């Protein structure tokens, strides 16, 4: 596979078009640890949907089926001193950082051992330097504030914030991008553009492009079309290293696919759109490309997740010492 230098587009530099990738190139062989994390997230999300369908979960959830590779690829480039701000679709982010399906499932199920004692649930989680919250765009200014702190108190560390294509409808995004660039804050904005905001296709909720919006602030932008963990890391490692040493924001847009519903069984997309997303799903593509490694790892993770579900389900209800 050809190595690609980071393709960075500043606001005033001329954009060159990167080699087109369809998200359908052969996926590289991964170390066992990476594949296990990918599959842990996949089977976690499938387990969550299954529990919902059985009426065993209370409330709501948003799975990241099809988007698992993003945090798995990205977090290898982070250290634990970096802050991560996740969003409503955050199970994959949490699991990629902590590999703790028990704590997360307990949180979603309100069982003992829950990361946040069952108070936060699926989309409000805080652990160490990882925080998720449920209002679109709200975490960008907060992450900018954290980046302001890091720049001064812990140079070299960055704040990472995950948003979707739909999040760009919120004004908070632009207030934060403006301040981040003005104040040269080490803020990595990870856009998971899955081409659909709940039920609204991107082209019906966004005028222009994310790239042009970043350029309007003079903020560096990088477009990731690959679904290949190795390739994504290769593309991003220099750019992320650079914002550590020369603090400034960076917008990375992933062209990705939401394989599952927005929430639970609420997918109103035309069948061919869902099929298109499924055809690009890393899960099947990796399985076809590396069948032997995949079959064993997939089976192991499926069984492990069944055991997680069984064990967590049997736990007593979580308790919250409300102050």
């Amino acid at each position: 596979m050809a190595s690609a230098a980071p393709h960075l587009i500043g606001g005033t530099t001329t954009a060159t078009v990167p080699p087109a990738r369809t998200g359908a190139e052969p996926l590289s062989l991964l170390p066992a640890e990476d594949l296990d994390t990918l599959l842990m997230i996949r089977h976690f999300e499938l387990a969550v949907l299954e529990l919902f369908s059985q009426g065993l979960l209370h409330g709501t959830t948003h799975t990241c089926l099809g988007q698992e590779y993003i945090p798995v690829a990205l977090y290898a480039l982070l250290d634990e001193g970096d802050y991560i701000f996740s969003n409503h679709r955050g199970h994959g982010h949490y699991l990629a950082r902590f590999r703790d399906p028990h704590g997360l499932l307990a949180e979603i199920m309100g069982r003992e051992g829950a990361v946040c004692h069952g108070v936060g649930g699926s989309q409000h989680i805080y652990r160490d330097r990882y925080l998720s919250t449920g209002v679109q765009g709200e975490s960008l200014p907060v992450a900018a504030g954290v980046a302001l702190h890091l720049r001064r108190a812990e140079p070299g560390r960055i704040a990472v914030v995950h948003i979707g294509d739909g999040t760009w409808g919120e004004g908070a995004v632009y207030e934060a991008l403006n301040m981040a660039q003005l104040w040269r804050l080490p803020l990595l904005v990870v856009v998971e553009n899955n081409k659909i905001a709940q039920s609204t296709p991107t082209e019906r909720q966004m005028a222009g492009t994310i790239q042009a919006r970043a350029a309007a602030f003079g903020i560096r932008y990088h477009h990731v079309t690959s679904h290949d963990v190795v390739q994504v890391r290769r593309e991003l490692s220099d750019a992320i290293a650079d914002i550590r040493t020369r603090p400034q924001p960076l917008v990375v847009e992933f062209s990705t696919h939401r394989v599952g519903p927005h929430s639970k069984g609420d997918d109103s997309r035309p069948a061919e759109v869902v099929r298109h997303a499924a055809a690009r799903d890393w899960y099947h593509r990796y399985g076809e490309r590396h069948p032997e490694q995949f079959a064993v790892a997939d089976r192991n993770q499926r069984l492990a997740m069944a055991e997680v579900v069984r064990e967590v389900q049997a736990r007593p209800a979580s308790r919250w010492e409300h102050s």
Partner: protein
Amino acid sequence: MTRPERVIGNLNRALHKLLDDDPRAYVVGEDIADPYGGAFKATRGLSDRHPERVISSPISEGGIVGVAAGLALTGNHPVVEMMFSDFAALAFDQLLNFASKSVSMYGRTVAMGMVVRCPTGGNRGYGPTHSQSLQKHFIGIPALSLHEMSPFHDNADVLTAMLSREQPCMLFEDKTLYTRGMHQGGVVDDLFRYELLDDPSRTARVFPVDCGDPDWIILAPGGLTERAVAAMRTLLLEEEVTCELLVPSRLYPFTVEPLLETVSRARRICVAEDSAADGTWGEMLAQQLHQHLWRRLARPVLLLSAQPSVIPTAAHLEHAVLLQATALRRALTEASQ
């Protein structure tokens, strides 16, 4: 004898002291940098002295309150200035759904020490979107405390008290107070004295010299102080009606229990405020007072607020909508019968 320190000077000194003493303190806001020093000059001199931690921001109220929340989350003590408290509406999401929620929604207590300063209130002719007293819209949000500036409470103490709560606080600052003098040494004027009580709201008690149990207890936030004292003065001199005034530094959370001994000395109680009527702080207080004192009171708590109206710009119209000393006195006279 030197002139008393002006309230704006006291506030400015408090911000200087905070930045001098606390290396984790920040001040963030629009147009706060020198030489301009903020729309009301509360931040004058701060950026020259602490350029790294005094940040003049774009016009982004929601954004800067979010930035403050991020600073608080990482252990800092940010103070954000809303140029006018009306603009805190633009930061409502950050205050309601992030900063205050974060204190408890992650299942454990997360320290979020931050202050949002809100130049508040009318009587200055700024019109409908620059004159409101919006305290009532922020009442009842778990882990969001509301405080109000007064000429009795040293602002350095108030800032310390707010930041030590380790949760988001709003400080409402009635704009007409800025140019007034701070009261010192327990003296308001020739007729009235004051003391600071030890209750959790750090209430200032203003009382006539040589007076036993008063006819009225008036509870009011700091911005009403001058109007309330003017009404109390006229009532005392012209009608021999005696009033005491209680001015809590912290408006919410507020519990009247620690003040029951003080308030139960009068059989008539009034709560005066400048919010538009209905759904107000005063109604919350009245409900608490009724719970405890229903049988002792000569009449229900008298609630006085601004009219339920936009705040007009023209002086005569604005004057009629907001609660003035004359209306306060008239209402107390009528309710004394």
